[in-house]
C-alpha cells in the first residue's frame, strides 16, 4: 500500500510535467496545425541557458525565469525565421523541418556544452515528507503541482477571458476572416509559438532535475511521452492534454515501480499504439467527418 501511494504521487508529479509539455504541443497544433517535433530540443536549449545563468550568478530562480524567457524568444524565433517559410501544403514538410531543427539544436548544444550529463539542482528537497507514517509528498512535488497548476489555469484564463486569447483562437479557427476583421494573424501565430515554447521550457526545468541531468538528448523520451499524452487526450483538446499527461505519468510510474524502469519506453509505445489503433482521435475527440 505504501508503495502504491508513493508510486501514485510520483506518477502524478511526472504526469503534471508531461501534461504541461503536451499542452505546449497542443497549443502549436491548434494554432498552426503543426506537431512541433523540435519542442524537446528547444526546451533543452532553454534549460541550458538557465544552467549557464544559474552557474554564473548562483541563483536558481534567476535561471528559472531566464529559461522561460529564453523559451518564449526561441519559440518566436523558430516561427519567424523558419516555420513561416515552410510550405504547409503537405503535412510532411513542417515535420521534416522540425526534425532538422532537432539535429541543429542538439548539435549546437553538444558543441557548446559537450555531451556529458550535467547535474541539475532542484530548488526544493526531493525526499518525501511523512504524514502519519506514510511517505507522501516531497516539497519538490508540491512545487511541481503548484507551478503546473498556475500554468494551466493561466493558459485557460488567457484563452477564455482575454482579448488576446480571443484573437488567437479566431486566427487559428478562421485566418482569412480574422485578417479581414483586423486581427494580426501572423503575430498571433508567433505569439502561440512563443507561449508553447515557454511552457515547454518550464516543463523541461521541472523534469530535468528528476532525471539523469542536463544533456542534449535529455528530453527525447519526455517528448515521446508527452506526444503520447497529447494523442491520448486528442491533439485538439487542451483539457485532454492535461488528463492524458496525468494518465501517462501514472502508467509510467506503475510500470517502472512494479515491472522495472527499463520497460517504461516500451509501455509508452504500447499505449501510443493502442490509443491510435482503437481511438485515433484521442479519448476526448469529437466525432469528425473526413473532408473529401
Amino acid at each position, binding site marked *: 500500500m505504501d508503495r502504491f501511494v508513493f508510486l501514485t504521487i510520483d506518477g502524478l508529479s511526472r504526469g503534471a510535467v508531461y501534461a504541461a509539455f503536451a499542452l505546449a504541443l497542443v497549443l502549436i497544433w491548434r494554432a498552426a496545425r503543426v506537431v512541433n517535433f523540435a519542442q524537446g530540443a528547444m526546451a533543452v536549449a532553454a534549460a541550458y541557458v538557465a544552467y549557464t545563468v544559474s552557474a554564473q550568478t548562483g541563483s536558481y530562480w534567476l535561471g528559472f525565469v531566464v529559461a522561460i524567457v529564453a523559451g518564449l524568444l526561441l519559440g518566436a524565433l523558430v516561427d519567424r525565421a523558419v516555420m513561416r517559410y515552410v*510550405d504547409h501544403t503537405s503535412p510532411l514538410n513542417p515535420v521534416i523541418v522540425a526534425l*532538422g531543427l532537432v539535429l541543429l539544436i542538439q548539435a*549546437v548544444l553538444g558543441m557548446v556544452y559537450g555531451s556529458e550529463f550535467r547535474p541539475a539542482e532542484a530548488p526544493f528537497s526531493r525526499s518525501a515528507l511523512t504524514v502519519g507514517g506514510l511517505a507522501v509528498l516531497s516539497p519538490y512535488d508540491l512545487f511541481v503541482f503548484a507551478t503546473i497548476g498556475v500554468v494551466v489555469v493561466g493558459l485557460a484564463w488567457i484563452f477564455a477571458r482575454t482579448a488576446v486569447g480571443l484573437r488567437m483562437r479566431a486566427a487559428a479557427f478562421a485566418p482569412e476572416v480574422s485578417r479581414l476583421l483586423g486581427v494580426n494573424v501572423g503575430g498571433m501565430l508567433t505569439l502561440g509559438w512563443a507561449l508553447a515554447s515557454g511552457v515547454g521550457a518550464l516543463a523541461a526545468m521541472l523534469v530535468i532535475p528528476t532525471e539523469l541531468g542536463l544533456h542534449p538528448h535529455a528530453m527525447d523520451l519526455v517528448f515521446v511521452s508527452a506526444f503520447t499524452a497529447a494523442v491520448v487526450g486528442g491533439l485538439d483538446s487542451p483539457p485532454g492534454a492535461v488528463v492524458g499527461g496525468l494518465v501517462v505519468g501514472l502508467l509510467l510510474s506503475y510500470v517502472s515501480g512494479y515491472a522495472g524502469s527499463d520497460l517504461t519506453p516500451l509501455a509508452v*509505445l504500447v499505449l501510443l499504439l493502442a490509443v491510435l489503433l482503437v481511438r485515433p482521435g484521442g479519448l476526448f475527440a469529437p466525432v469528425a467527418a473526413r473532408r473529401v
Partner: protein
Amino acid sequence: MSATRAAVPPKQRPADAGDRPVDRRRGSTLLRHLAIMLAAGLLLVGVSYAVEPFRNFQLATVAAYLCATAGLTVLTGLNGQLSLGHGALMATGAYTVAFCQNAFADRGMTGGWLLPLSLGAAVLGTVAVGAVVGVAAARLRGPYLAGVTLAVAVVVPALAVTFDGVFNGEQGLSVPVEPPPVSLGPYFPYERWQLWLTGAATLLALLLLANLIRSRYGRTFRAVRDDEVAARLAGIHVARTQVLAFVVSAATAGLGGALLAVLAQSVSPGAFSLTLSLFLLMAVVIGGLGRLTGALWGAVLLVALPDLTHSLTEMLTLSPAVAQRMEGNLPLAIFGITLIVVMIAAPGGVQGLLSRLGRALLARWSARRS
C-alpha cells in the same frame, strides 16, 4: 451542388518527383534496368581495383546506407508515409544477421552460401516487424504516423539493453564473417571483398526497387500518396497499398542494417539510435525525395560529410576537447541546416536541382541546333 463549389478549381499539386510521364522510353523496363545495374556492377569492380582499401570500405558503407535510403525514399517520396523508425528496422536486420551468423559459427558450419542465407533471414525478419508496424501505420496520417515511428526509433534500441540476456546490452554482439574465398588468391584485400558483397546485394535490391517503382504497384503507391479518396474510387485498396509500401521499405532497410553489421562485424544499439533514423530521412530529403538517384546522393552524403568535417577539424588546430566536441556534432549541425534550407528553398533536393540543370542545358542545346 452549389455553383460556388464547382467554380473553385481543385488544388493543383505541383508535379514533382517520379510523376513524369513514363512512356517516353521504349523497350523492356527490366532489360534496361538490368543493363544499368550490370554497368554499375562492372564500374564498381573496376573502382574496387583502382582505389585504396579504406576507400573500398567507405564505398561499401555507402552501398549499405543506399539500401536503407532507397527503401525510405520509396516509402516517403512515393507513398507519402513518413517513417522516423527506419533506424530501428535497420537494427532488426542487423541483429538478425548477427544471430544467424553466430548460430552457424557455433555449429561449425562454413561455406559461401551461409552469408546470403543470413542476409535473407535478416530481410525476412525485418519484413515481419515491418508488417506489424505497417499495419498500424496504414491507419495513421501525417504527424500521428511520425509520432509512432519516432516512438519505435526511441524504444527499439532501449529494448536491446532491457533484454540484455539476448542482445548483450550496450556491448552488442559480434558478427563472425568468413574471409574472402581462397579462389580469389591469398592476398585479396578484405575491404575489396566487402565492397563486392555489399555492392552485389545493394544492386540487386535497387534492381528490384526500380522495377517495382515503374510497375503497377509503383503507380498505385503514387496514386495513394496524391489523393487517397481518388485512389479508392479508382479501385485501389489504400490500406493494403500502404502496408505493402511499408513492408518493401522495411525489407530494404533490414538488408541495409544487415550489411552494415556485416561490414562492422559487430552490432550494438548505439549504432542504431534515433539520430540514425533522422540521418536517413535527412539523406533522402537532401538527395531528392522519391528518386533512387536521390537516395544515392543521400547515402554518399551520409558517409562523406563526417569524413569532410573530420579533415576540417584537423585543419583548424583546436584543443583536443573542443576538437572532440566539434567532430561529433559539426556533421549533425550541417545536416540540420542543410535539411531546413533544402526543405524551404529546393524541395526537389540535389537530384531535383541536377535534373532541372540537365533539362535547361538540353533545351539550350536543342534550341541552338534548330
